[in-house]
């Protein structure tokens, strides 16, 4: 494989979160509009300054990024729409980075937002994908709870993970999230409460599940010199990966695309797992967090249960993980869930955490996982970022 060109001269900046709401009377356009409005205000830019736009949303239909340009009065010369849900953040970053690096655009706004209305989650499940309509939704209509229950069951059998192991992840995240001003779930969680929670789809229990909500996240990708001129604190992009439909012949998902591309992720950044000061994984559900620990090289396959027993995953711990509390605390605002870890990493690396600041963090990894099209998640992505 040819060595990929580095992302020299590119920065990501201006992390934006529009505080989430459990339900919203507004549409996705409103949430995305709010995020772009805040992004421009924080960056000191006007709408006409944006020449690139990258959008992810589940509830924008029938519109796409195209309709948004007219709806929001934007006239970009570079436009992308990424339908990969939980993997959309790192994927938006790597596309936008190449665009600004090559000069196809100078200022790319990356934004993900969704609304949530009573019954909109059920309707999204029913029409999520062709394979879902044909081959999963008619089977108890449990949605991702049921899909991840099957993956969790298989993982527990294969590697001996216990409910307590998953609980450690959820409890540490709830601890991190408690400091976030806009987290939807911030009451402390004990192991006893975690284990006593009501069953959702065995072995998945209530506190393994994220809460669907409305919200938006955004960030800006530009060149270092432009960021400097605008006075924006930027974060450098050291390496990125993405992969879709990896290991298609595995009868059930115990590993995902990161395992294919992980060596390249570290090699391109010239880093090792030990260099990573904080990790933001996609946390819907804890089993997929364990899979990321393994497939991204923090421990061997099957050893994530032992890894979570041996490490403190809180912001003050030896392995700071999902430092904003992740979706388990903040809520899952549709595609914005795929941006949440990246936006949090930008804040941590620029010393502007809204919750607990991880001291001396200079290198972060952000990982995404998306789209249970049928029986497994298809999209994986990750990025290594460094403080400027």
């Amino acid at each position, binding site marked *: 494989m040819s060595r990929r060109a580095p992302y020299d001269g590119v920065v990501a900046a201006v992390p934006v979160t529009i505080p989430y709401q459990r339900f919203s009377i507004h549409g996705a356009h409103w949430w995305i509009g709010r995020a772009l409005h805040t992004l421009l205000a924080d960056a000191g830019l006007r709408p006409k300054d944006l020449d690139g736009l990258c959008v992810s949303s589940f509830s924008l239909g029938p519109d796409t990024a195209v309709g948004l340009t007219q709806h929001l009065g934007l006239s970009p010369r570079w436009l992308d729409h990424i339908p990969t849900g939980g993997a959309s953040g790192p994927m938006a970053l790597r596309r936008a980075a190449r665009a600004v690096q090559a000069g196809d655009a100078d200022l790319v706004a990356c934004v993900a937002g969704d609304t949530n209305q009573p019954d909109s*989650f*059920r309707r999204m*499940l*029913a*029409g999520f994908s*062709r*394979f879902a*309509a*044909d*081959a*999963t*939704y*008619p*089977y*108890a*209509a*449990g*949605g991702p*709870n*049921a899909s991840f*229950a*099957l*993956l969790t*069951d*298989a993982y527990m*059998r294969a590697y001996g993970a216990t409910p307590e192991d998953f609980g450690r992840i959820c409890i540490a995240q709830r601890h991190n999230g408690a400091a976030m001003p806009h987290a939807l779930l911030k009451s402390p969680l004990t192991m006893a409460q975690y284990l006593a929670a*009501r*069953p*959702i*789809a*065995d*072995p*998945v229990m209530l506190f393994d599940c994220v809460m669907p909500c409305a919200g938006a996240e955004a960030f800006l990708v530009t060149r270092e010199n432009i960021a400097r001129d605008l006075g924006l604190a930027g974060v450098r992009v050291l390496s990125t990966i993405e992969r879709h439909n990896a290991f*298609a012949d595995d*009868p*059930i998902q115990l590993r995902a695309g990161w395992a294919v591309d992980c060596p390249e992720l570290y090699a391109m950044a010239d880093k090792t797992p030990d260099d990573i000061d904080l990790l933001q994984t996609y946390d819907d559900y804890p089993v997929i967090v364990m899979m990321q620990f393994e497939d991204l090289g923090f421990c061997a396959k099957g050893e994530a249960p032992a890894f979570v027993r041996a490490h403190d995953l809180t912001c003050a711990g030896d392995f700071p993980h999902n430092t904003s509390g992740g979706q388990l605390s903040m809520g899952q605002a549709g595609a914005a869930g795929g941006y949440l870890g990246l936006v949090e990493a930008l804040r941590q690396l620029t010393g502007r955490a809204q919750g607990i600041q991880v001291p001396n963090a200079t290198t972060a990894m952000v990982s995404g996982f998306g789209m249970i099209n*049928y*029986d497994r998640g298809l999209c994986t992505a990750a990025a290594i970022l460094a403080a400027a």
Partner: protein
Amino acid sequence: MKRQPTNPLLPPRAPLLPPSARSRTALGLTLAAAAGRFALQVCEDCSATQYPPREACHRCLSARLVWRDTPIGATLLAATRVHISADPYFRAHTPWRIGTVALDCGPSAIAHLHDAVSLGQRVRMALRLDRSGQGVMLALPEHDTPEDKLIREMSCNPDQRRILITDGRTAFGQAMARAFLTAGASQIFVGIADPWKPFPGQSDLPGELVPLDITDTTSVRQLAGSLGGRVDILVNTALHIRPGGITNRPDLITAHAEMEAGFFGPMRLAQAFGPALRARAADGPFGACAWVNILSAHALAADPAFGASSAAHAAGLSLAQSLRAELRPIRVVNALVGPLDDDWHQDIPPPKVAPAALAIAVVRALQDGIEDLAVGDVARDILARWHDNPGQLARELAAS
């Protein structure tokens, strides 16, 4: 499971359907399930088996995907009991077990799980119609399959159900009553038109005789008024098949009688009994579940020697197709038969269908959750030729 008296104070359970939206391609599963087969798409170029149903081969991208009967063995890899469902039908049935199976023929599938299957076990796969009428995957114990909640829900077992047989005058109506008695039906009502007229077999006919003439709207309505809420399976045995084509009959009298029995009669029954049947379809494991039509296989393509009869049965088949849309979650079973071994087929050579064989086939189809069946060699032959090429079948019959 034992039938309990229903508590009249409880609000009725709405006849909800599980999710029924499917791609057009996925209806191949429904066709196979309706006929009791296990068929998946297989690539004609590289032989890879496909699941979920696809438009192009996941191995070689060929579009030459054909539905073939495939091996039914599989291994259960993971299981869950779903406690929380987004869908109102499943909410009424949780907890509900599903699992991931690795099919011997290649793909993995999400399937409904029988109570008696557990992790790591070998399982036997089946396609069954669910209550929305769509084909779904079931993972069953490898050997025998005791009836559990899932099997009960996905089939129409006459055991402890109440049956209405619309015409007990014919030999096969009577055979039907005996077959349902053997299958454990809790009550059998047998319709008799003009009950004052004696008929052969009357003395050993099981069940309760009720007055019913499906050619008479008043008679049908009166019986529905007294019985409508107590019928779980309705079997229309009122057949009127007479030899004779189109131009060699002098008038419309026989054709009228054939259309009365084949189309207007079933329509009267559907209007009078259908709504109550459907309304009681969610009454638990003993609720209303099936509507059975007996149709000449020549409903598919006319036999000119029975030209008017064929037309009446084509009308009946068309009516049944609409009934499927209107009566769900009620199963609408179409049993296609060849010539019956009765007085109206004296000059037809064998093979002919014996009344008892037809009755047993219908009961077995209900037990097995089958919605499309052909009874007897002639009906199976006609159906096979129709599957091969419907236009050719019609030409063939017209030329013979």
